């Protein structure tokens, strides 16, 4: 069951110069969403945007009737959303798309996230924690302040390891430098982030025979499976909004769309 719900912005927290965590009130979405799913957000008309923009659910607190979105400003839509005043209302269509699935009991979950790609994993980590599962979380970013929500994952007791391209925090380099160590033993990988990173992680996982769920981003028109604007190539074009956004990484033919955005 999906709905187009009014959600009220109750709190905005700046995480870096261009990223914010936005907390919204909507009892329906807070309890209906599953980790990995997303919502299509429509801003007040005055913002002058036409299409909705897709955002992963970052966190859910059903008891407080709240959910949050992690927003990185990359263009008009993300900027307008990140700058909404507290108390503003937006329309959120959701919950949409596929979900992360729990790792088999013998598999240790390893989460790999680049930048804002960490968004869907806070809710997922809570679900893992609720099932008494530990996870390793590999965070990558250009610089220290791109390692969003690091403390939240640490507070959940997850094994958090970081890499920055400028070496300002954790290992120097891309997040892939952390993967080799993390793949020891039976592992289930989860990833989200920039396409080049996902391609790299998928190659490594395939070489090692590691199961790998990946959350993909595409431009989206409807989020409902109708416009066919959001496709991803498997053995044919499938819809990121409906068959995804979470896919089995082995099903994706990465060389078919290197520049999908």
């Amino acid at each position, binding site marked *: *069951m*999906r*709905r*187009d719900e009014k959600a009220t912005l109750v709190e905005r927290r700046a995480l870096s110069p261009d990223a914010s965590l936005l907390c919204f009130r909507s009892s329906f979405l807070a309890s209906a969403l599953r980790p990995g799913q997303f919502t299509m957000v*429509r801003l007040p008309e005055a913002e002058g*945007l*036409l*299409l*909705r923009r897709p955002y992963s659910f970052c966190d859910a607190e059903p008891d407080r009737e709240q959910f949050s979105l992690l927003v990185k400003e990359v263009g008009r839509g993300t900027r307008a959303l990140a700058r909404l005043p507290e108390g503003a209302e937006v*329309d959120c*269509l959701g919950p949409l798309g596929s979900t992360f699935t729990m790792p088999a009991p013998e598999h240790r979950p390893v989460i790999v996230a680049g930048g804002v790609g960490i968004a869907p994993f806070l809710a997922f980590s809570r679900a893992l924690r609720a099932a008494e599962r530990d996870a390793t979380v590999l965070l990558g970013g250009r610089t220290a302040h791109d390692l969003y929500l690091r403390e939240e994952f640490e507070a959940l007791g997850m094994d958090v390891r970081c890499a920055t391209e400028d070496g300002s925090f954790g290992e120097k380099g891309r997040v892939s430098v952390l993967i080799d160590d993390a793949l020891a033993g039976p592992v289930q990988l989860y990833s989200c982030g920039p396409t080049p990173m996902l391609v790299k992680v998928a190659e490594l996982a395939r070489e090692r025979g590691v199961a790998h769920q990946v959350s993909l981003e*595409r*431009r*989206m*028109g*409807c*989020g*409902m*499976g*109708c*416009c*066919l*604007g*959001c*496709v*991803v190539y498997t053995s*044919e*074009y499938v819809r990121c909004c409906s068959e995804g956004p979470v896919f089995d990484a082995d099903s994706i033919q990465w060389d*078919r*769309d290197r*520049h*999908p*955005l």
Partner: protein
Amino acid sequence: MTKPDLSVTIAGIHFRTPLIAASGTFGYGTEYLDVVDYSAIGGIVVKGLYLEPREGCAPPRIWETPSGMLNAIGLQEVGIEKFVTEKMPRLCELDTSVLVNICGSSLEEYAELARILDDVDGVSGIEMNISCPNVHEGGILFGCDPNMAARVTEAVKKKTSLPVIPKLSPNVTDITAVAREVEAAGADALSVMNTIPAMAIDVETRRPRLKNIIGGLSGPAIRPIAVRLVYQTANAVQIPVIGIGGIASHEDALEFLLAGASAVQIGTMGFVDPSVWRKTLDGLEDYCRRHAVAAISELTGAVET
């Protein structure tokens, strides 16, 4: 005052409301079931179909522009056979009229699709997308040449007793020439209009926003052009016209009706606001009451010039 009659009949097809879902924007009809109030929808035009399934264009396929969007989906579709066996039974369960939008690379392909659809239960009519390249004529679009548009209409008419509704392209010098030719060839009604060819470029990377380079522009940005084309078309032919282009509200729908349309289709704005159907229908009903209009069909062509 009694409840105004919002239903319309076009080429013998009854639509319980004058709001029809536009081809390519409402999938195969059932995708929006949990979110949209289907009772406000008078008919559904399904995604364009060829005989065989098609892969479509490489992404990126869409881009937002001021008050509009560009798309180059490349007619990704499931093919007629899968449509008939898997999609049509589910469409039949909806209490709404179903128009099947057909495409072809040749006259023969259009004709064969029409022949197949003639026997399919639940199909109310055929909308012909004539903005498709004709492979036998160097890829020129059927709809850009009045003569070719007429020939393909005639070929389809021969194979079916269903109402046939060519969907005209705005990308022509004189839409009334195409409209008159397809009317003479037997068209039962006309859909006006398809998207406008357009382009956008990312100046940082210097790459086109769409992989296909050129796409079709839709949404409110194109509405005044569509209203003008509906006005000109409706004045040129006797058959009914269905107005399409950027409709977002009952005022927009009314503009098309007054310009000469008998019903309208909504596409892009359904992506933006799934409640556009209910809001637009309620707005039309309220307008009819305020203006003492007993039946919405009275408004067709009622613009005072």
